[in-house]
């Protein structure tokens, strides 16, 4: 092997050493809490970060490790740490470098959980955030304060689907020595490898398209390895001695994987949001077919965009692949294969018509998830984004009539037929 392996091959093979005892081809489920050390010297070496190895599954686990290394390979990152959920990944990543008195500049268009974390929860820990319209690139620069230590956004905003200008915002961060973290859940590395455009770390809810089957919750933080932590003294958690590991200097000793190592050494140890080995196994099964599924998601999305934009019960359709979308050009630049399989649209007749549509579809499942193999619909204003205030709702681009659609892998003719049933019900409501 002298040439680098391509995406589909990495999806199947990266990170896995074929079981040397029984030759199992699939990654085995190492359902164990702990690991027998061959001798005391090896044990102390693992605990002291002198060598790789497993001590306790809260910190590392061989099955989870395969998933981590596979995702790192697909993203082009230097290291990855899997967590119990996407929100755990976000929290661990933020707290690895921010603390009391620090500040985040974040996009307004993010998953409601991210907004709530930064608006309501992190301030209790002394971390504040300023939210900026993702289309206002200059706004990110203007919002930076002396204590800003992170720029955060979702490449494909949720649910407005505005596209972050990765290169421009990455440059703002690089110029001011502030890392740029991107929640890349909606794009996956198959549609865009954010590190190629200036992101320094990515977050994924692996629950979504990466797993794809809707059977396991999981998250991951990927370290791009491309941020110079040593350029300033703003990031002491990375560049200063870390007492719990005998004063280790992570930047000196781990270089491009220093950030991921901090998460492993602190967040996984002290907070403990570890991914279960069984979940890692399930998510690996999904990841093996990521590109095949994404292609089908995208094909179905394009068919449904055509269907919805020409439907007389639909008042508007929003997707970056449409020329009418304000982020269309950025989508073509960063997401040339397609801008994901989330679509938002308005049902004529407003809130009640939208409700009728959702309640009368049968194939499309009404639930709070995206990126499943099955088509999903939801009303964001009353569910995923119900915990954010009216002002933030407007900032996030959420309207009362909005239906968020996560396009699945069914035969698209069946999805259209199902939607017709929903639209007929909505039409009846609208006429009342």
């Amino acid at each position, binding site marked *: 092997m002298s040439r680098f392996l391509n995406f589909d091959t990495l999806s199947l093979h990266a990170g896995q050493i074929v079981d040397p005892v029984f030759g199992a081809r699939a990654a085995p489920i190492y359902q164990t809490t702990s690991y027998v050390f061959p001798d005391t010297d090896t044990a102390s070496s693992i605990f002291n970060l002198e060598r790789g*190895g497993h001590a306790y599954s809260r910190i590392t686990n061989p099955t989870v490790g395969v998933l981590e290394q596979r995702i790192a390979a697909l993203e082009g990152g230097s290291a990855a740490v899997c967590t119990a959920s996407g929100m755990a990944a976000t929290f661990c990543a933020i707290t690895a470098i921010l603390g009391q008195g620090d500040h985040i500049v974040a996009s307004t268009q993010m998953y409601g959980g991210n907004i709530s974390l930064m608006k309501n929860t992190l301030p209790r820990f002394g971390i504040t955030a300023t939210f900026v319209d993702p289309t206002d690139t200059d706004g990110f620069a203007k919002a930076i304060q002396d204590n800003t230590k992170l720029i955060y956004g979702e490449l494909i905003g949720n649910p407005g689907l505005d596209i972050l200008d990765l290169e421009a915002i990455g440059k703002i961060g690089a110029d001011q020595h502030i890392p740029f973290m991107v929640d890349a859940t909606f794009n996956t590395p198959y549609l865009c490898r954010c590190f190629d455009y200036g992101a320094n770390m990515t977050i994924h809810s692996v629950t979504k398209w990466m797993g794809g089957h809707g059977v396991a919750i999981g998250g991951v933080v990927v370290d791009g390895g491309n941020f110079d932590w040593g350029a300033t003294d703003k990031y002491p958690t990375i560049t200063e001695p870390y007492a719990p590991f005998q004063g280790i200097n992570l930047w000196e000793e781990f270089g491009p994987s220093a950030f991921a190592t901090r998460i*492993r050494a602190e967040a996984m140890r002290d907070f403990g949001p570890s991914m279960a080995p069984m979940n890692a196994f399930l998510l690996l099964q999904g990841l093996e077919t990521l590109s095949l599924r994404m292609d089908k998601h995208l094909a179905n999305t394009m068919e449904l965009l055509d269907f919805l934009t020409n439907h007389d019960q639909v008042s508007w359709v929003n997707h970056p692949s449409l020329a009418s979308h304000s982020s269309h050009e950025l989508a073509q630049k960063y997401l040339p294969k397609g801008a994901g399989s989330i679509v938002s649209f308005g049902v004529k007749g407003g809130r009640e018509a939208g409700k009728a549509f959702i309640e009368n579809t049968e194939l499309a499942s009404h639930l709070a998830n995206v990126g499943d193999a099955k088509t999903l619909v939801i009303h964001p204003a009353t569910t995923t984004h119900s915990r954010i205030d009216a002002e933030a709702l407007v900032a996030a681009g959420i309207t009362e009539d909005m239906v968020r659609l996560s396009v699945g892998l069914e035969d698209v003719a069946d999805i259209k037929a199902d939607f017709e049933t929903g639209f007929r019900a909505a039409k009846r409501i609208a006429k009342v």
Partner: protein
Amino acid sequence: MYADVQGKQVFATTGGKPFDNRKPTVIFLHGSGLDHTFWGLHSRFFAFRNYAVLALDTPGHTNSAGPPLTSIEAMADWLNDVVEELDASNISLIAHSQGCLVALEFAARYPERLKSVSLVASGLATPVNDALIKAAEEDPEAAIAMMLGWGFGSAGHLHQGPIPGNSMVAGGRKVMRGNVPNELATDLKACNAYQNGRQAAAAIQAPVQVIIAGKDRMAPAKATADLVEHLPDPEVTLIEESGHMVPQEVPNQCRQLLRDFVFSNNPAT
């Protein structure tokens, strides 16, 4: 830690323990375009076993001030400047690839403080083809891809790194991107120009260990055989399954070999 050597800043990681020149010293030398992090799975091990450790960035690389040095001989002299500045003694040199050429030359020129030399994945010379040197100057990404592509064996290409969650290849790429185009191109030219390996090898007085990788495309069997033939009574070990990046691809085997050799030839109290 940083040291001022001949008016220029030199960086070395000390493996998590303050450098103490009263202890026997283990000095790690990296290969072309790389830096101290290449030895991360080895330097901390020795530091916590009572050795003074210096995993150096050669001039111009990552944290050490430039410009990069243009010959292996100059690198050996620079290494001696570092040793003298820090007054390091009882030295075990551990080197990989280009670092081995520097170690050969240093061992021949400055034998006084040396206790042992460990050479990992190297021949007596490192001829570099013109296409790679040209790529390093004009298309660094292509040069990095060539070097990492040839350098790592299947474990690297399959991202099967020894540290859970880490990708050896991606980590190497990030380090090398910080050391292009000047440092990498200069390193490669220095390797290509070095002709004194045979004489240097014959002049070495300290015990020498050679670790050979069975799937090494950058220091293939013929080259390593030439090295072994010209060294005085080396201790030779073949790790059949590894590519060129032995200290990262098979760190546990490599560390055990280095440990046994250094412990026996340069014991720490």
